C-alpha cells in the first residue's frame, strides 16, 4: 500500500504535467490567425479607457514591443480575485470563488509539502516547536493552506452543485460531466477535512508521506489520509479531461487574440507565416469559392460571378 501511494503520486503528477504540456503545445502550434482584438487592450498605454495605438496615425505602425508583463499581471490577479465575476455575476461568484480558492490552496499545500520534505531532508524539523524559523513557516503554511483549502473547496463544490441545480439558466447548459466534476471535487475536499479532523490534525502524516515520496522511502499513513491521497491523485489524473485548462488557455485567449495587437511588418516572421498560409489549398465547397486552388490564387482572381443557390 505504501509503495502504491508513492507510485500513484508520481504517476499522477507526471501524467498531468505531460497532458497539459501536450495541450499547450497543440494550441501554441496553431497557425497565426487574423487579428481580432477587443478593446480595452490592457497592455497599451491608454488601454485603461479603451483607446488604441491606432488612434495615433503616427504611432500605430510602429513596433512598440508587446508589454506582455502588464497583461500577465492583470490576468494573474484576476485568477486570484475573480473580480469580473464579482462585478457581473455576484451569486455565482459566491460559490465559484471559494471553489477556486480551494484549488489554488490545495496546489500551494502540495507545493509546501514538497518543499517541506526537502527542508526535513536537509535536517530541519517541520513542526510548531521547531527551533528553525523555516520549520515553523512550513508547519503553519501547510496547516493553514490545507485547512482553508479543504473547507473553501468543499463549500464551493457543494455550492456549485446547488447553484447549478437551482438556477434554471445554468442547469439548462450543464452536462452530466459538470456535476461529476463538482461531486468529485467535493469528495476530494471532504476526504481532506475528514483526514485532518480524525486522522492527521497537524498534517504530520502528510508531511512524512511527502518525505517518503521524495526519498523513495514510503511511510505508513492511516486509512483516512491514504484515501485522501488516492482521491487527490485520481483527481489530478482526471483534470486534463475537464475544462480545467481554462486557467492556462485564458492567458492565450487574452494575450494572443483579445490583446494580440501585433502589426504585420514587412519582412517580419508574421508576414512570412502568412505567405506560407496563403499557399495552403482550400477545399470549401460553396460555388463562389471554386476551391482546389490556394488561398492566394482564390483571393486574387479577377471575376466572381457565382450566385447564392
Amino acid at each position: 500500500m505504501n509503495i502504491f501511494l508513492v507510485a500513484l503520486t508520481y504517476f499522477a503528477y507526471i501524467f498531468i504535467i505531460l497532458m497539459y504540456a501536450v495541450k499547450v503545445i497543440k494550441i501554441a502550434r496553431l497557425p497565426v490567425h487574423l487579428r481580432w482584438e477587443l478593446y480595452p487592450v490592457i497592455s497599451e498605454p491608454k488601454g485603461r479607457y479603451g483607446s488604441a495605438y491606432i488612434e495615433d496615425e503616427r504611432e500605430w505602425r510602429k513596433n512598440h514591443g508587446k508589454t506582455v508583463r502588464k497583461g500577465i499581471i492583470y490576468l494573474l490577479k484576476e485568477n486570484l480575485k475573480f473580480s469580473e465575476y464579482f462585478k457581473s455575476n455576484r451569486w455565482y461568484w459566491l460559490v465559484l470563488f471559494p471553489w477556486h480558492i480551494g484549488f489554488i490552496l490545495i496546489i500551494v499545500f502540495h507545493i509546501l509539502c514538497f518543499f517541506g520534505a526537502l527542508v526535513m531532508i536537509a535536517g530541519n524539523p517541520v513542526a510548531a516547536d521547531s527551533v528553525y524559523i523555516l520549520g515553523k513557516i512550513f508547519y503553519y503554511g501547510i496547516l493553514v493552506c490545507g485547512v482553508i483549502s479543504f473547507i473553501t473547496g468543499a463549500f464551493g463544490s457543494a455550492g456549485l452543485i446547488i447553484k447549478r441545480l437551482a438556477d434554471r439558466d445554468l442547469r439548462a447548459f450543464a452536462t452530466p460531466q459538470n456535476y461529476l466534476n463538482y461531486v468529485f471535487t467535493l469528495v476530494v475536499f471532504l476526504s481532506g477535512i475528514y483526514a485532518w479532523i480524525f486522522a492527521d490534525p497537524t498534517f504530520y502524516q502528510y508531511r512524512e508521506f511527502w518525505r517518503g515520496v521524495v526519498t523513495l522511502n514510503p511511510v505508513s499513513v492511516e486509512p483516512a489520509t491514504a484515501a485522501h491521497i488516492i482521491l487527490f491523485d485520481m483527481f489530478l489524473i482526471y483534470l486534463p479531461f475537464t475544462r480545467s485548462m481554462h486557467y492556462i488557455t485564458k492567458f492565450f485567449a487574452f494575450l494572443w487574440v483579445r490583446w494580440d495587437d501585433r502589426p504585420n511588418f514587412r519582412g517580419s516572421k508574421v508576414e512570412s507565416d502568412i505567405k506560407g498560409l496563403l499557399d495552403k489549398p482550400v477545399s470549401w465547397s460553396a460555388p463562389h469559392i471554386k476551391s482546389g486552388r490556394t488561398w492566394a490564387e482564390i483571393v486574387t482572381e479577377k471575376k466572381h460571378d457565382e450566385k447564392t443557390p
Partner: protein
Amino acid sequence: MTKKHLKLTDISKEGDVQLDEVNIDELIPLPPPYDKNEGLKQLTDDQKVRLVNNLDGFSALALPKPKDKAEENKYIGQFVAGLKKLLSKENNWTFLQPLLLSLDYCARCQTCSDACTVYTASGKKDIYRPTYRTEIFRRLINKYAKSGGKLRAALGAGNIEINWGTISRLYELSYRCTLCRRCAQICPLGVDNALITRELRKLFSQELGWAPKELHEKGTVLQLEVGSPTGMRPAVAIDNIEFLDEDFTESTGIKVATPWDKEGADVLLLHSAGDILSFPASVIAFTVLCNAAGISWTLSSEAPGYDGVNYGLFYDDIQLARIVTKHAQIARKLKVKKIVMGECGHEHKALITVADRLLIGDLNIPRQDAMSFLEDIVFSGKIKFDPSKNNFPVTLHDPCNVVRNLGIVEPQRRILRYLCPQFREMTPHGVDNYCCGGGGGLSVMSDVNFTDWKVNVSGRMKFIQILEAFADQPGPEVGKYLCAPCLNCKLQFKDMFKYYGAREKSGIICGGLAELIVNAMVDVKKPFITWDEE
C-alpha cells in the same frame, strides 16, 4: 405571459415547429410617447408555405423549404463536412486558434448573457441568449467533427442531432446576433461568442453557399463584379459625386471639386458608396474638409475602390480577403501614401486590423481611421470654426467596429467637445457602448419581416439610450443630433427613427461626424445640417 424556456435539444425538433415567438409585451418597455405597442409584422400565409419559419416568427434570410428528403440530406452532409473544415488548418487558419480557444474552454456560467442587448431587450428570451447558439454549435462540433465525439455525446456530453431543423434554425439564428462582442468583453475567460457565431455564418457561406442575399449576392459578389453593393458602377459614382460638388458650390458659393485617380496623392479616401446614396452630406463634407485643409487626396474610380464596405467581415473569409486585396491593389496602383477610411465602422475593422494579416509585401499600405484623420484636420489650425453654430443637443453613438473592436475612442470626442457646446455622452459609452442593433450586417438586411425585428428587438436598447441622452429636452421643438460615424449604424437609425417617428415625436435626426465639422466652419455661411431631412 409565461416565459418560454428552451432546451438546447429543442433546436433539432423536426419539421416546421417554431421554437419561440416575439411578443411586443414581453420586450423591455419604451418610454412615452413610444410606449403604445403596435403589433409586429407577421409572415403571410404564402410566405409560411414557401419559406422556412421554424425559429422565432421572423425571416431574415428567406430560406426556401427543401424540395424533398434527399435535398435535406445533401445539406446535412455539407454541414457536417463544414464543421470538419472549420477545424482544419488549411481551410480555417484565419480563425482556428481563436475558435478553439472559445469553443473548448467556456465555463457555461452565463455571465455574458446580460451583456447582450438583444437578449436583454427581448425580455431575456433563451433563444437570443449569446450562449444558446454557441453551446449548440460547440456540442455539434464535439459530436460530429472530433474523434470519439459520438460516444462522448451518448455518454451525456450533449447529444444534439443534426437534422434539417437543426441546420435551418441555426442558419437563421446566426443572424440574430449583431457581432457587437459585448458578450466577449465581459467573459472572464476570453470566450468570444460573437466569433463563434461568425464561424457558424462562415460555415454556411463557405460550405453550403448559404448567405443573406444582401450580404453575398447583392453584397460582396456585386461589389467585386461592378464595384459596389449599391450597384453603382464607376461612371455613376463619378457622376453622383460631381453632382454633389456642383450642388454644394451653387448653394454656398464655395467652389469644391473632388479629385479622382490622382496618382501619388498622400491619401486615398475610401468612402462607403452607400453614403453617396443615403447620406450624401457625409461625402461632400469630407471633400470640403480635405480641400480646406489643403490635403493631397484622391478618390479612386476603379471598382471597388470607391466603396470601402466589406460585408465579408460579417460572414465569409474568402470574400473578406478578396475585397481587402482589391482595395490594397488599387491603393498600390495609385501610389498613395495611405488609405483613409470613410465613416464606416466595419470598413475600419476589416481594412485596418483584420486585413493586416492578409496583405503582404507592398500591399500592406498604411491605413488610417476617419476619426483621427478628421481630428488632425480640425486641430490643424487651417480651418476657422465657430462652435456656436452647433449649439444644439448632440450625442455620440460609438460604432462597435470603431470603438470596442478597434480602440478608436477619443479623437471623435475631442472634436465634439470642441465643436458642439451641448455635446453629451450616452450611458454606457466608449468601449462599453450598446450596438445600434444593425451590426454584423443586419442593418442592410430587410427581407420579409426582418426590419420589424431589427428596430423592435436588436435596436431597442440603443433607442432607449438615445432617448435618455436627450431626456432634458424630449420634445420635437428642439432639434437634436445623433452623431453616428458609421454608414451601417446610420442605416439602422434611419429605419428605426422612421419606424418610431423619432423625428416628429422627439426632433432627433441622425448624421455623421464630418457634417458637424462643416456645419461649424466659419466660411460655410449657410447651415450645412438641414433639419428638414433625415
